[in-house]
């Protein structure tokens, strides 16, 4: 295990889950592509990072006391300039356990969910599905034992009812399947390697486009 990953896991043990900027850092270490992001702890840092990533931005609360960010108004989408960023920063800093904000690139693409859990019978398994906020309504998912190859990932994607959403349904640009299946293979490798530490992961959504597949949101729950 990479030293930095070890360090992140250790620092997150007490809370039981990994703060999103650290989760994304872990994913990057395992070779997965995320949206461009920065963790800013002061308004000054936020402004500097915003210049680098570029407006518009998604701004999210970073706090070990806030696991479900949207539930407390901790996610602001489409922050368009410096003035708005300042006011959003101020508002989020009032939330419990405030430990800075996560600035995230706004990205587009077909929404996919990648997840993992430790199954008592089958060990580390990966879930691949049509993602977004309605994922629990449509339940269009495939589940596979980790690790899996890119070819197996493609097979799993093909078994989704909503596969046509990824293949350019009604004039949309088809998703770059090589990138997506590679991302899934790397994800499954990480899940397999860290099976002793991680209880479950939600990457939702992963935004899949003609070029890249970018992980826009990451939640890593640790074993207690």
């Amino acid at each position, binding site marked *: 295990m990479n030293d930095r990953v070890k360090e992140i896991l250790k620092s997150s043990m007490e809370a039981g889950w990994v703060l999103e900027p650290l989760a994304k850092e872990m994913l990057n270490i395992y070779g997965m592509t995320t949206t461009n992001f920065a963790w800013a702890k002061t308004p000054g840092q936020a402004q500097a990072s915003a210049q680098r990533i570029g407006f518009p931005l998604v701004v999210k609360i970073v706090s070990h006391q806030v*696991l479900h960010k949207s539930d407390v108004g901790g996610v602001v989408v489409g922050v368009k300039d410096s003035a708005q960023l300042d006011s959003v920063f101020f508002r989020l800093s009032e939330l419990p356990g405030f430990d800075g904000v996560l600035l995230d690139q706004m990205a587009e693409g077909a929404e996919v*969910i990648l*997840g*993992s*859990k430790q*199954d*008592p*019978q*089958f*060990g580390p*398994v990966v*879930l691949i*599905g049509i993602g977004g906020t309605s*994922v*629990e309504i449509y*339940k269009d*998912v*495939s*589940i*596979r*034992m980790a690790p*899996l190859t890119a070819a*197996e990932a493609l097979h*799993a994607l093909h*078994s989704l009812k909503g596969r046509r959403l990824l293949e350019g349904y009604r004039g949309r640009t088809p998703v770059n399947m090589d990138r997506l299946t590679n991302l899934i293979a790397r994800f499954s490798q990480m899940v397999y390697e860290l099976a002793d530490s991680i209880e*479950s*992961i*939600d990457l*939702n959504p992963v935004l899949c486009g003609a070029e890249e597949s970018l992980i826009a949101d990451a*939640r890593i*729950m640790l074993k207690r």
Partner: protein
Amino acid sequence: MKLDSIIEPHSIAVYGLSKTNPFHPANVIYAKNHLRTNSHTYAINPKGGTHFGQQVYSSLAELPEVPDLAVLTIRADFVPDTLRECIAAGVKGAIIVSGGFAEAGRDDLRQEVRRICEENDFPAIGPNCLGVYSPPNVNTIFLPVERIMTPKLGCVSIVSQSGGYLVEIILNLIQENVGIASAVSIGNKDVIDEVDVLQYFSGHEPTRVIGIYVEGFKEGRGRTFAETVRSMDKPVVIFKAGKTPGGTRAVSSHTAALAGDYLTFSEIMKQCGAIEADSPGEFVAFCKALGHYKGKGGKRTVIISVSGGHGAIASDLCSAQGLDLVEIPKADKAALAEKLSENVRKIVSYNNPIDLTGSVADADIAVATNFFLERDYVDQVILLCLPYVPGATPDIGAHVSLYTREFDKPVLVYIPNMPKYQMYIEGFESNGIPVSHSVEGVVYMAKALARYAK
């Protein structure tokens, strides 16, 4: 652990023969193995004496040989010591039929049995099971002979967590005329579980298809099971009971909420290539079809019927099960018409499902079957054969089989299961063409082949 001594023993000691209760499991097991298997079978009871003229041995040490297998039908409390005695004497495996372990609150006994077996690398099936039916070597299914039919010998082997349901499966297989190579009830599976038996059957020469009834795997064993299936060259059909959604309790991740226990099981069976049956009917049909045609067939299906209604119903079922009813090219419709008798040529419906009509004769059915087996765009043919059509004779099976022998493609037949039609059914089956007794069943057979072929 090596299971040869349990599934293919040459000598058996039966512990617990009763001198007073003729229906005691030990008595039934002793009689069955003594009279109806090739293995030397010895009865053990501390009181000694004789039993219907046969010697009853008062201890293991008295036997003229060290048996391969010990069958324990004694009180749970006596099991640990008896196992130690068997191991010390050099017995190679045991079937513990007795109940009264973890399921009766005696977890201490469960642990002790497990420890004894593990420390001595001693394979034991059970406890709390019916054990093994594996002709011609062993049969510990303790149901009296007159209460149960004997299956014919075949290539399907069964593993079941439930003993009672194992008997049900055997009866279902007998009804569909499917032969059995071996059947194992694993009970509490404290030492040997379905994965061990699966691994054994993977190298068991008479076994070509393995059917498994499972309620759940023990911790981590699901993964080993899946890896074993993936590495095997034999089809594994699996039927699961207890499909509670699970994983729906309050959880903090989408994944944990979505990936319930059953969905995870079902998806991983797909990943590893096990063929999951959704119902007992599918289970039997899958075992039967794969026993005949492992690796052959595929999705592209032609239905040949002698009744429009049967064709339409089979066609709906095929679509629902994900089979492709291929479109017949125009030129082929004309070519087929040329080959059919003048009687029916003009009244046949040439769209898939093909309806040869009730005016058909044996020769037309055979010619049409052959015609589609020859086509590259067809993977398999479903033949809905109604013996009450005046022109169909009991020779139809033999007639069709003249053609099927030429091709490496499956023909799957439906014939209603009536005593009167037995000759028709045998005409197909004794020529190697499987028959189902329901339209659903024949479609399930086609589905199994399509799934395994891909």
